[in-house]
């Protein structure tokens, strides 16, 4: 039985817990739930159906840092879901580093640690012979890392490009189909909860740049940082430009790309029948490789669909642990 701690009980943590309650994973027991204020822990497993919200209203809630659990209690798997901080990577980096050093496997959807400390965290995981998985960091439920690692072994990835931010894609879609201005489409996205109140990271292209960097460093083994990415956001896109694109059977999308070792995020003209041309909050990722040639994946890039990536990573951990025990 794998004993797991869900660290970070926001939207994603709750969505994962709900899924595990409705469809439990055999051989997985949630022994801890933690947020920024403290944690709930039960050695023989928490009864998820009895968990009240907020966490601190539950009997047995302990104030303090959840990292105490990682060092003092017997935990096999850390599911790290605290909010992304792209400046420091914290508290995610500390959580993951602590867990790996304690020989605890880690699954995360937190972009910060993967963006800023991927090499270090992978090195610790290798040294300690533990598993570190981060499928949910890019493209939500789109299984990009699993696909490349499991299905394209022996192939060489030449380029990766895609629509990796649902908020900007929603805005550009509304501008295309309804003729809205950028400002109006953004206001609508905020009202619907698609964009955050401070949408800077999305509309300035930084969120896409972070995801492109993770793909570049993880899949293509590059050693780039944010200053290596040419970043242009969508704030200057006008209804007139969208209209001009439409006249030619095209539209404008925010495309992140890794081509010829160069990383960029910028609005590009794209034909309406192009495989990457998806609308609404959808994401799309296109891979070009030497053997397979070209492959495009389309899916929801955020929200509850990210749980699919977390589940896949959790199952991988369980399977890998099994195969290690057999040997």
């Amino acid at each position: 039985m794998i004993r797991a701690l869900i660290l970070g009980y926001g939207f994603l943590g709750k969505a994962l817990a709900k899924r595990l309650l409705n469809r439990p994973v055999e051989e997985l027991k949630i022994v801890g739930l933690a947020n920024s204020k403290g944690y709930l822990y039960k050695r023989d497993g928490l009864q998820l159906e009895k968990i009240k919200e907020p966490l601190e209203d539950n009997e047995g809630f302990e104030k303090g840092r959840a990292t105490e659990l990682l060092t003092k209690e017997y935990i096999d798997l850390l599911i790290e879901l605290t909010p992304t901080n792209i400046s420091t990577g914290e508290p995610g980096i500390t959580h993951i580093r602590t867990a790996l050093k304690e020989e605890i496997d880690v699954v995360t959807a937190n972009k910060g640690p993967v963006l800023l400390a991927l090499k270090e965290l992978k090195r610790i995981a290798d040294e300690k012979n533990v598993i570190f998985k981060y499928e949910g960091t890019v493209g939500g439920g789109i299984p990009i890392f699993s696909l490349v690692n499991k299905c394209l072994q022996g192939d060489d990835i030449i380029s990766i490009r895609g629509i990796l931010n649902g908020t900007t894609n929603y805005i550009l879609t509304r501008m295309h189909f309804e003729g809205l201005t950028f400002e109006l489409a953004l206001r609508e996205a905020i009202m619907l909860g698609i964009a955050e109140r401070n949408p800077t990271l999305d509309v300035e292209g930084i969120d896409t740049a972070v995801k492109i960097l993770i793909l570049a460093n993880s899949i293509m083994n590059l050693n780039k940082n944010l200053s290596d990415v040419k970043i242009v956001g969508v704030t200057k896109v006008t209804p007139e430009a969208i209209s001009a694109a439409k006249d030619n059977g095209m539209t404008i999308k925010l495309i992140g790309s890794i081509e010829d070792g160069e990383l960029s995020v910028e609005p590009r003209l794209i034909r309406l029948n192009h495989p990457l041309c998806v609308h609404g909050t959808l994401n799309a990722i296109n891979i070009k490789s030497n053997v397979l040639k070209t492959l495009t994946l389309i899916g929801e890039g955020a929200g509850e669909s990210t749980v699919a990536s977390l589940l896949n990573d959790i199952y991988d951990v369980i399977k890998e642990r099994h195969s290690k025990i057999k040997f």
Partner: protein
Amino acid sequence: MKVRLTLGLVDRPGTLLNVLEQIAIHGGNIISIIHNRDRITAGYVPVSINVEFPSSEQLEKAKSSIESIGVPVMESETLEKKVETFLLIGAIDIDLITSTLQNEGARLIGLSLIGSSKTPCLKLIIDTPLEKRHRLLKSLQSVISSSDCLLIREEEN
């Protein structure tokens, strides 16, 4: 890569055959040959040969071989061109754009202004030799970097 080689051939039997041999040695596949007999100058007949080479290295080797047998290569022009649409949002001196295109061997084949003087948007349709496309993009980006404009290029298939 597909190219058009324009050669100055002496109007003597066997000369063309020698040239074709040099092309074949370097992996060139002949697509078509056009004799411009009406343009004979100083005893030379300009001959245009459209050839496909496996790589630019082999093209260069073939050109050297052809010249080594005394046949001048008057022109070598790519047949692989890309026509693509660009949008330029914001106000910019169009002469700067056209001179950049000229310097980079690209041709402006369509230009239209959409939007008002407050929010101008230029649509440019540009014909570029494939091998010069990357450089053209860099040059255009460099030209607009000093302005407040946004250049939007077409995503490749």
